[in-house]
C-alpha cells in the first residue's frame, strides 16, 4: 500500500471546521464548537481510509468538510491535484463529479417524491449532456452494478428495504464516475445481515471502478474489514493513524487502546482473555476542550505534561502517526502539525 509509488489522491492539511456559538439578545459570538480542529491526512489512490471515533468526535463533519459541503474555517483540501478549499463556487461545481458522498440514513437522503430513475439520473441531468435514452441506459447500468433490478426503476424509495435504499444512494454516488467517495456511516442504519451485503458491494465497486473511499464509521470491526489504513478521531483531532494491521494488533495511543478494548467480542471463549480498559467519564464538549491534550481528562496514562502542552501529531514509526506525549518527539518532523508529504520506506 505505502510503496512510495502511489500518490495521494486526497491531501488534507490542518483542516479546521469551527461552528460559531451566538448567545444573548444581540446574538453576539461567544465561542465556537471546534468540531474539526487541525486535521491532516492523505488518502492514496485506490485505498480505503477508515475514519473512526465516537459520536460527536467530528468524523462526519470532517467527511463533509473534505468535500467542502461546509465553508472551511481553515486548512486546505487537495483532491486530484485541485485545492478545493479555495475554489470559486463555479469551479467547484465543475470538480464535483469526481467526488461524491454516500450518506448514513438512506431514508432521509432520498427524496420520497422522486422515482429511483429520477434519483439516480439527477446528477446526470446536472452535469452531463447525455440524451434521454443514454441516461436511461446509464441508470439501468448503474442499477445492475449495485444489484438492483432494472424493472424497479419507476418505483419510489418507500417501496424498498433499508439495504436496497442504500444501494440506490450508492448508485447515485456512482453516476458521474467519481474517483473519490466519502461513505458516511453507510451501514449504521442497516441490520447485521444486510450490512455485509452492502460492504461487499462497496468492495466490489472499488475494484471495478478503481474508487478511493473515506469510510467513516463507529463500527471498528467493520472498519478493520474494509479499510487499508485507519484514522482514529477524538474531540476534533486525529489521535492516531496507521495501517489496519498495525493499528488493530498494536494500538499506540491510549484512546485507541481503550476504544479497541471496548468493542464486544462475539466469542464468549475469548471475552475473558482481553483486558478491558473502561474509560471514566464522558467526552468533553468540543466548545470547551480541555487544556493540553484533548484526551487528558479520561486518559488512564495521563502525565502532568498532558494537562499543559498539546501533543504534536507526528510520525513515530514509518506510516504510523500518533499525537501523544508517551511517544517523544522525533527530530525529523520538527514539531510541524502537518503529516509528512510522502511516507517512503527508509
Amino acid at each position, binding site marked *: 500500500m505505502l510503496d512510495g509509488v502511489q500518490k495521494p489522491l486526497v491531501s488534507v492539511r490542518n483542516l479546521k471546521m469551527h461552528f460559531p456559538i451566538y448567545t444573548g439578545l444581540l446574538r453576539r459570538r461567544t465561542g465556537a464548537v471546534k468540531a474539526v480542529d487541525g486535521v491532516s491526512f492523505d488518502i492514496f489512490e485506490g485505498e480505503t481510509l477508515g475514519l473512526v471515533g465516537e459520536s460527536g468526535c467530528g468524523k462526519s463533519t470532517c467527511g463533509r468538510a473534505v468535500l467542502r459541503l461546509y465553508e472551511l474555517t481553515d486548512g486546505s483540501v487537495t483532491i486530484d491535484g485541485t485545492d478545493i478549499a479555495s475554489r470559486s463556487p463555479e469551479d467547484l461545481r465543475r470538480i464535483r463529479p469526481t467526488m461524491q458522498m454516500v450518506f448514513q440514513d438512506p431514508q432521509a437522503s432520498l427524496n420520497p417524491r422522486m422515482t429511483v430513475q429520477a434519483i439516480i439520473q439527477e446528477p446526470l441531468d446536472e452535469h452531463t449532456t447525455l440524451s434521454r435514452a443514454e441516461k436511461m441506459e446509464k441508470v439501468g447500468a448503474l442499477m445492475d452494478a449495485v444489484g438492483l433490478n432494472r424493472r424497479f426503476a419507476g418505483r419510489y424509495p418507500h417501496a424498498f428495504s433499508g439495504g436496497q435504499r442504500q444501494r440506490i444512494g450508492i448508485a447515485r454516488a456512482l453516476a458521474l464516475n467519481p474517483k473519490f467517495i466519502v461513505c458516511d456511516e453507510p451501514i449504521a442504519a442497516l441490520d*447485521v445481515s444486510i450490512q455485509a451485503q452492502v460492504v461487499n458491494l462497496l468492495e466490489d465497486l472499488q475494484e471495478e471502478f478503481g474508487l478511493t473511499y473515506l469510510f467513516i464509521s463507529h463500527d471498528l470491526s467493520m472498519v478493520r*474489514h474494509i479499510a487499508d489504513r485507519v484514522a482514529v478521531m477524538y474531540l476534533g483531532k486525529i489521535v492516531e493513524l496507521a495501517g489496519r494491521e498495525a493499528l488493530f494488533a498494536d494500538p499506540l495511543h491510549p484512546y485507541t487502546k481503550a476504544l479497541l478494548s471496548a*468493542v464486544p467480542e462475539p466469542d464468549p471463549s475469548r471475552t475473558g482473555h482481553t483486558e478491558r480498559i473502561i474509560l471514566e467519564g464522558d467526552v468533553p464538549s468540543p466548545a470547551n476542550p480541555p487544556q493540553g491534550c484533548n484526551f487528558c481528562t479520561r486518559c488512564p496514562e495521563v502525565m502532568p505534561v498532558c494537562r499543559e502542552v498539546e501533543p504534536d501529531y507526528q510520525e513515530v514509526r514509518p506510516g504510523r502517526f500518533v499525537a501523544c506525549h508517551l511517544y517523544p518527539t522525533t527530530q525529523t518532523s520538527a514539531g510541524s502539525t502537518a503529516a509528512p508529504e510522502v511516507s517512503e520506506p527508509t
Partner: protein
Amino acid sequence: MPDGGSPVLSVQDLKTVFKTRGGEIHAVNDVSFDLAPGELLGVVGESGSGKSVTMMSLLGLLPSPPADVRGGTVMFDGQDILRVDADTLRRIRGAKIGFVFQDPMTSLNPVFNVGFQIMEPLRKHMGLDKRAAAQRAVELLELVGIPDASRRMTDYPHQFSGGMRQRVMIAIALACDPQVLIADEPTTALDVTIQAQILELMKELRRKLGMAVIWITHDLGVIAGIADRVIVMYGGQIVEQAPVRELFSNPQHPYTRALLKTIPSISGERAKRLTIIQGQPPIMGAAPTACPFRDRCDVAFGRCARENPPRYDVGRGHDAACFYDADTGGPRIA
C-alpha cells in the same frame, strides 16, 4: 449463574398480531421461554424479528388496537399477567418487573427533574414518603455510578449525557427492587466506550442485587460478554435457544450460523470477504406455515416449505427450530 429452581417468568405460546391497513402482521408467533431466578437471558434478532414486541406484549405495553395479544400465558408470581386487571398489572410493572428502553432521551420526561422521576415509582409502588424516597433515590443514583448524586437530583434529563441518562433509566427500573429487569437494546444508542461502562455496571448490579435480566440486543458481541443463555429470534419466533458458550461454539440453526459468520471481528483472522445472508428478513403477513428462514437458507429442502419446524432438543440445554440436523449434515429424523 442460573441457580435452577422454578422460573420467575414463564412464557408459553405467546402470539401477537398487529392489525394494519395492509392486513395483519404476525409479529410474535408461539414464543415460549422460561427465565430462571438470577439468570441473564439474551434475546438476539434483527429489527422486525419480534424481540421487542414479545417483551412489550408480555407486559401489556402495546397499544391495542393495532396490537392484539392473541394467545399464550405469561406466568409471573403465581398468576397469568396477560389476564390480570389493569391495577394489578400496574403494580407489577415498575415494581416487580423493571423496564429499560433503548433511547434514554425519549424515555425520560424532559420537564421533570431526574430526582422526581426516580422518586415517582418509589412513592407510587413502595409508599415511601417524600424524604425516604429522596434518600433512596440518591442511593440509587450512587448505585448506578452517577457522581455527585445528591446535587444531580435536581438536574433535568437534558443536563445529562447519553450514558448518564441510561444510568438514570437503570436507576428508575431498579427503584423498587424488581425480580425481573427487561432491558430493550439499552446500549444501542451509546458509543462503544460508554457501552462498555454500562455493561460493567450491569454485571456489578447483578452481583449485588441478584435479579433476573432479559437483555434484548442485535449485537452478538454484547450477548457473548454478558448473557448466561441466549434466545435467537427470526420472523417472530424463537429459532434457537442455548447457553451462551454452547450457542457460540456449536450453533445449530442455519440463521445463527450465518449470522455468526457475517460479523467481522476486531481480532483473529481477517476474512478476505464477508459471508452474506442473501435476501431480506420476511414480513409475516400470516401465521407461519413454513420455516420463515427457508428463502435465505442454504440447507433448505422440501419439508421446510411445507411445515414450520418445531424446536428440536439437541441436548446440553440447546434447542433449534430446524429440520436440518447440523451434526449429521442431513434431515432430522423425527
